[in-house]
């Protein structure tokens, strides 16, 4: 195993401007960062063990929409989680607050709970006795624990909102039944619960998580479509590298399994509307037969820790890490004819993020042993991705396995990159490439992995995510 590269924080790592020596500014060493907790909540299960088992079997979470009657929509399938009891993931003292948790918030809260427990972090959220015990000592001091959690545009619950809207209908006359803004302002709005707005603010995912786990350190909410989780993980990485926190919750969560969000996705033109009768084979990312994505829901939160603080607690408690993050890059793709619904066809925007991440990792493209790509299964986006990969990896591309997971869990929006990252992080210590499905006709020279799952020597794994709006985040993981 090669030694972990040492990086300088504050230095310029690009290739067009003189390095830090020439700028004259002193630089601090960037701290190293490891992944210690994985909290997936997707259609495949709750927690990393059940999720990974499902991955090994290539189980698909896509089926007819359950959350509402979707027969009036052009697409009637989705990858859903089903009902779950949020109380199970919230300490008793905070259960009252679950009333103001929309599904997106609930997914983030559950995923963060699973991640914290997986990492073995002691927080007021994971220790049921924390509140009773004056001498409670969390693993990390509250001011050193941060949270960067990606979120989507949260759709209001239609039943709840409309139950109030109907109070503002014109009662009679030629406009009977129509919405009346005067009645709404006067009387209708009082039928909404006072805290109604707080269910739908995207930053509430992070806020509830910080309250439950007493994370008082740096905190952010990144809202960049399918790049949200990857960018959030990258931001936690930077925050820990520069010493502003020792550990962070990061990732993202979103549910589009409701009529408004579902319709919005269909309106992007990226959704498969031709395979409603074949849900299990509907999502075929990065293949010649890709015919659109399938909408999913999910939350993927992970725990990152500074190597130095992790090693200290590992010596005391035997905590283990999944992998080290050694590279991160962010970029923007530009495709005006599609209003950035799809990345540019040359793949330029995506390639910039991947190259930045490889550069920080100080490795060559052919050092990558596995790629967990975005693979939305939307043909225009898929072709842009393939172009980017060809551009970065060149002749090495056919020999690098790709494991797109959206054939199993759909596109979970702000939660999508969380799943990609978790699969990458789990594959490393398992030294196993999971099974993906619907991959028998890969696009061009892409080396899509197929069932069954197989063992492999995985030193470096790349994952990248992005989509609507054009933002992309790439992360390189290294065996630890």
């Amino acid at each position, binding site marked *: 195993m090669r030694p972990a590269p040492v990086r300088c924080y*504050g*230095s310029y*790592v*690009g290739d067009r401007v003189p390095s830090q020596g020439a*700028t004259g*500014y002193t*630089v601090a060493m960037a701290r190293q960062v490891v992944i210690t907790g994985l909290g997936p909540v997707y259609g495949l299960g709750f927690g990393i063990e059940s999720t990974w088992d499902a991955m090994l079997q290539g189980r698909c979470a896509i089926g007819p929409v359950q959350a509402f*009657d*979707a027969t*009036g929509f052009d697409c009637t399938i989705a990858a859903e989680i089903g009902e779950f009891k949020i109380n199970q993931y919230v300490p008793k003292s905070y259960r009252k607050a679950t009333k*103001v948790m929309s599904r997106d918030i609930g997914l983030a809260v559950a995923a963060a709970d699973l991640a914290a427990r997986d990492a073995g972090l002691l927080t007021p959220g994971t220790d049921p006795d924390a509140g009773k015990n004056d001498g409670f000592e969390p693993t990390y001091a509250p001011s050193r624990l*941060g*949270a960067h959690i990606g979120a989507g545009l949260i759709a209001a619950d*239609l039943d709840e909102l*409309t139950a109030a*809207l109907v109070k503002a209908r014109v009662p009679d006359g030629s406009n009977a039944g*129509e*919405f009346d803004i005067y*009645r*709404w*302002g006067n009387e209708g*709005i009082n039928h909404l*619960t*006072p*805290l*109604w707005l*707080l269910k*739908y*603010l995207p*930053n509430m995912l992070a*806020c509830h998580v*910080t*309250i439950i786990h007493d*994370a*008082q*350190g740096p*905190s*952010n909410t*990144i*809202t*960049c*479509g399918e790049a949200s989780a990857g960018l959030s993980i990258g*931001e936690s990485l930077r925050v820990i590298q*520069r010493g*502003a926190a020792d550990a962070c919750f990061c990732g993202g969560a979103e549910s589009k399994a409701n009529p*408004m969000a579902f*319709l*919005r996705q269909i309106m*992007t033109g990226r959704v498969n509307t031709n395979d409603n009768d074949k849900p299990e084979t509907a999502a075929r990312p990065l293949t010649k037969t890709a015919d659109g994505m399938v909408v999913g829901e999910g939350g993927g939160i992970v725990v990152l820790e500074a190597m130095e603080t992790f090693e200290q607690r590992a010596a005391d408690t035997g905590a283990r890490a999944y992998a080290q993050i050694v590279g991160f890059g*962010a*970029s*923007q*793709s530009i495709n*005006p004819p599609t209003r*950035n*619904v799809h990345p540019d066809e040359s793949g330029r*925007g995506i390639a*910039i993020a991947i190259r930045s991440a490889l550069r920080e990792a100080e490795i060559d493209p052919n050092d990558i042993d596995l790629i967990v790509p975005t693979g939305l299964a939307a043909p225009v986006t898929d072709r842009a991705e393939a172009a980017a990969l060809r551009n970065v990896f060149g002749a090495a591309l056919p020999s690098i396995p790709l494991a797109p997971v959206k054939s199993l869990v759909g596109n979970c929006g702000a939660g999508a990159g969380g799943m990609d990252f978790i699969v990458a992080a789990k594959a490393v210590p398992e030294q196993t490439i999971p099974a993906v499905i619907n991959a028998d006709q890969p696009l061009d020279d892409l080396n899509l992995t197929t069932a069954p799952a197989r063992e492999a020597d995985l030193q470096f794994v790349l994952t990248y995510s992005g989509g609507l*709006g*054009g933002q992309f985040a790439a992360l390189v993981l290294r065996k630890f």
Partner: protein
Amino acid sequence: MTQPIVITGIGCVTPLGCDVQTVWSNLLAGVSAIQPTFHFDASTFPTSFTAQVSEDYDYRKYVHRPEWHEGISRNSAYALGAAAQAWRLAGLDEFDGLDRERLGLYLGSGEGVLDFDNYAASNLAAWDDERGRIDSVKWAAAANERMDAVREIEQEPNMPLSHLAMEFEAYGPAYNCLTACAASTQAIGEATQILRRGDADVMIAGGAHSMVHELGVTGFNRLTALSTRNDSYATAARPFNRTRDGFVLGEGAGMLILETQQHADQRGATVLGRITGYGSSADAFRITDMHPSGRGAASAMTQAINDAGVQRDQVDYISAHGTGTKENDSIETKAIKGVFGERASSVPISSIKSMMGHLIAAAGAVEAIACVLALRDHKLPPTINLHDPDPECDLDYVPNEARDASVKVCLSNSFGFGGQNDTLILEK
């Protein structure tokens, strides 16, 4: 010392004007931008007034490819104008040496304005009175007929980012954060970190937001967060005053061009100021309330001061979050006292929200711009409507009239609903 990060451009579109000079003159003159709401008919709402951007504002005069932006929401429209002003002021429209892969964006923009009429009509058309719920098959039919793809997609919070990326051909690191009222302060802080680290040469940073729409006002009215002084709306925003009864909702955008000192020097750009410190924290207390001790606010301020490497007694102006809610202003005052100790009473503090309302996600960027102008002109904008100070708010809030002052170091606070707090330090 890390790589210094400089400000070379500023631009804004706000209720007090759609260019920096107009906004600054109005701020120094203590003008209130608050009016009866005209974006929709709010006459029967508990709050019938807001601070709105002029209806004459037209983003099309700022963009070179209007067809790319057809049908954008107000957020994107404000963002494009503010960014174009900043871009020109920075001289970037006449600079052809820019590496577009090292031009990044970090915005704190909100959700786009809801297509309320069609949304409400679709919901009502699908309501099953008997069962008291939506019939989703009927809803799909109604929504498919009424709703428009562009209007729906434009509501995604990363759309202003996407439009700016197209307009300015930015391929570098690109983020949108939405930490409620703290978002654009956070965006400027994180953009600074990206530049310090060397991941970009130039960043467009700021925010854009309008919640001046039916459900935005509904939501804040239900939270009882808004002032309801419908009879005296022009003086309704009363930060730090005893009779304050909530904030006044505003809208708009503020954008800054940030770059590494090295890049600015190489291209001979005029430096307007520097971002030298940034702090981010969470109250981790309640989604509805700030921690009564102001611990999160104090932590963000302390981190920013330490990051800048300045002494507390060097700070000579604080741009307060100062929303005009009972809770914020007294807790922010307490937090400032906690951080600055005895010196707190001698640092001038003001809230420009008293004049332009609360621009929510965009507030921090416009307030940072006001700090840049204070550094440039050695003038402090006032907190207007402050005639009867709250005994709990006993600091120097620059009441009612602008003031001359020697300004070298400014601190700017933004605290988000839910407890995310961000602070910036700006210097000459």
